[in-house]
């Protein structure tokens, strides 16, 4: 109890000089589970970025693979000496290295598509809310049409048309996600545009673009952060699903989903590790992001703020 009062007391003193961003950080840090989620995700992301440096072998350098080391269980001794912590697949590929490299593709696709979709959705949402009239109606009907169908179905349609590839998966994920942002931004922008600071900006005769991007946009961002965090997790999971189904990334650039799919056949013969560890990695990544997003939503929800 005393610990809690001590923790909040100095914060109360600073309230007058605390910026919204500082308040956000303080509230976020106060929740251990969310902080833990963030720490886990950052560790995973760091491991993915540093994969070429920390991975025991380059899993795509075929010359470095030894077929004699194929299908070694986790912790098993290699034929050529050394141990494989997470075992190897049929070709003698170290699973730990394959996972680290796979993470790069999974996280890259997830974060990359989210950022692009965020930019498109933001622009479309602001445009719809600020123009109003038939332009607004057109954009929103498109959003309704798209959100009326499950994401996996739309992704399958697009990939059936476009074919396989990392870029194609990203296009599909962007096409899926923009509608969520557009809807969120529009709802928020409709409220914000009636506020006095927008009126003041208009009275000053500021140009259209400056009002929209300089004044309206920054005030529409907070709820988008929550949606975007959750969408990164969705995008990573969906990419894995699509790759598992064989319509996502190509075999030459295996993401976590691809690794899991590759191990599917070996699982029947009891060699679980080829699928199991990439799956656990995927799960931990998605859960850690969801924990962060869930807590961010609580912090940023005005109804829950005192």
């Amino acid at each position, binding site marked *: 109890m005393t610990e809690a009062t001590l923790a909040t007391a100095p914060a109360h003193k600073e309230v007058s000089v605390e910026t919204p961003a500082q308040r956000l950080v303080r509230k976020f840090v106060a929740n251990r589970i969310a902080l833990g989620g963030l720490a886990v995700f950052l560790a995973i992301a760091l491991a993915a970025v540093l994969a070429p440096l920390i991975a025991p072998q380059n899993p795509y350098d075929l010359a470095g693979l030894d077929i004699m080391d194929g299908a070694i269980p986790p912790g098993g001794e290699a034929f050529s000496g050394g141990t494989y912590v997470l075992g190897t697949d049929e070709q003698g590929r170290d699973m730990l290295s394959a996972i680290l490299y796979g993470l790069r593709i999974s996280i890259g696709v997830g974060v990359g598509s989210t950022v692009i979709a965020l930019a498109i959705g933001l622009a479309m949402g602001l445009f719809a809310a600020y123009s109003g009239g038939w332009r607004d109606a057109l954009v929103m009907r498109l959003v309704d049409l798209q959100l009326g*169908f*499950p994401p996996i179905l739309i992704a*399958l349609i697009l990939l059936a048309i476009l074919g396989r590839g990392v870029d194609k998966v990203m296009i599909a994920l962007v096409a899926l996600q923009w509608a969520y942002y557009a809807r969120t931004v529009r709802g928020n922008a409709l409220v914000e545009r009636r506020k006095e600071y927008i009126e003041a900006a208009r009275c000053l005769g500021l140009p259209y673009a400056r009002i929209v991007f300089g004044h309206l946009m920054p005030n529409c961002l907070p709820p988008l952060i929550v949606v975007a965090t959750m969408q990164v997790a969705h995008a990573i999971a969906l990419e894995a699903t699509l790759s598992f189904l064989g319509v996502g990334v190509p075999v030459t650039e295996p993401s976590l989903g691809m690794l899991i799919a590759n191990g599917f056949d070996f*699982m029947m013969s009891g060699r679980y590790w080829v699928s199991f560890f990439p*799956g656990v990695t995927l799960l931990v990544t*998605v859960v850690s992001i969801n924990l962060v997003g869930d807590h961010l939503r609580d912090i940023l929800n005005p109804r829950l703020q005192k």
Partner: protein
Amino acid sequence: MGYVINRLMQGLMVIAVMAVLVFVGVYAIGNPVDMLISPEADQAEIEATIIRMGLDKPLWEQFLGFVGGALRGDLGTSFMYNEPAVRLILARFPATLELALAAILMAVAVGIPLGVIAGLRPNGVVGRSIMTVSILGFSLPTFWVGMMFIMVFAVSLGWLPSTGRGETVEVLGVRWSFLTANGLSHLFLPALNLALFKTSLVIRLARAGTREVITQDYIKFARAKGLSETRVILVHMLKNMMIPVVTVLGLEFGSVVAFAVVTETVFAWPGIGKLLISSIVHLDRPVIVAYLMLTVLLFVTINFVVDLIYAILDPRVRRKEAA
């Protein structure tokens, strides 16, 4: 009546828009000749097929032909099976329907009690644990969980089969698995797998519904009358919180069918989802088009029916639309 017509027109619009998108996507992007004709065909065969399929005609004429065929229920013939695509899909639909219904049943059977418990004690240890588990349900990748099911229950323990539908019984001219013991054992794991995600959703809906209903006067009155807590929960509360749950599940049915693609692939369940994936992999375009158009039809129909039920139940919806 004006409302019904309005909704019907909207539904038809969606179908029309999707027809254009699907047509443009499948027939206009890329070279349709490569996609529609098997690579082994020689030059004479290719030319014959182009003329037979009307690929030498202008695009708008091809589109009219596509629409005309679609209205007659003809969406082309599969290259793989050499059968009309629509018949191919309809033949596999009962398997998917059976799987989807079993999954929804499981989600309700597990999700409602857990959601009610979480709603009755939102701050208790049990309530919080249930909500944390439901976040996990949203995060777990369906296909991986399905594989883990196979690993544990089929490979390690050997309790349940992991592929196919098992024995089926023909009722009303359609084969069903759930009527035989062997079929049921085949159905269990895929249905459980497909149910996972929806169970989390049902838990959340039931929890929110319980928390809302619990503050109502009729619950207080029922308690004041001295009714047992079991009766208050089972009769008064459950009845009222089921309305949003049933609505959302009705709307979610289409998404369960779409998501069955993943489960069917993992468990080799011979439904329409597995057919779609193999058609995409083998570039069997007519089947893809037929799947998409039939799914769109299914979605539009579900939305239309839900809208209609809403309007019947709630007069405000009708008046708002009329105004």
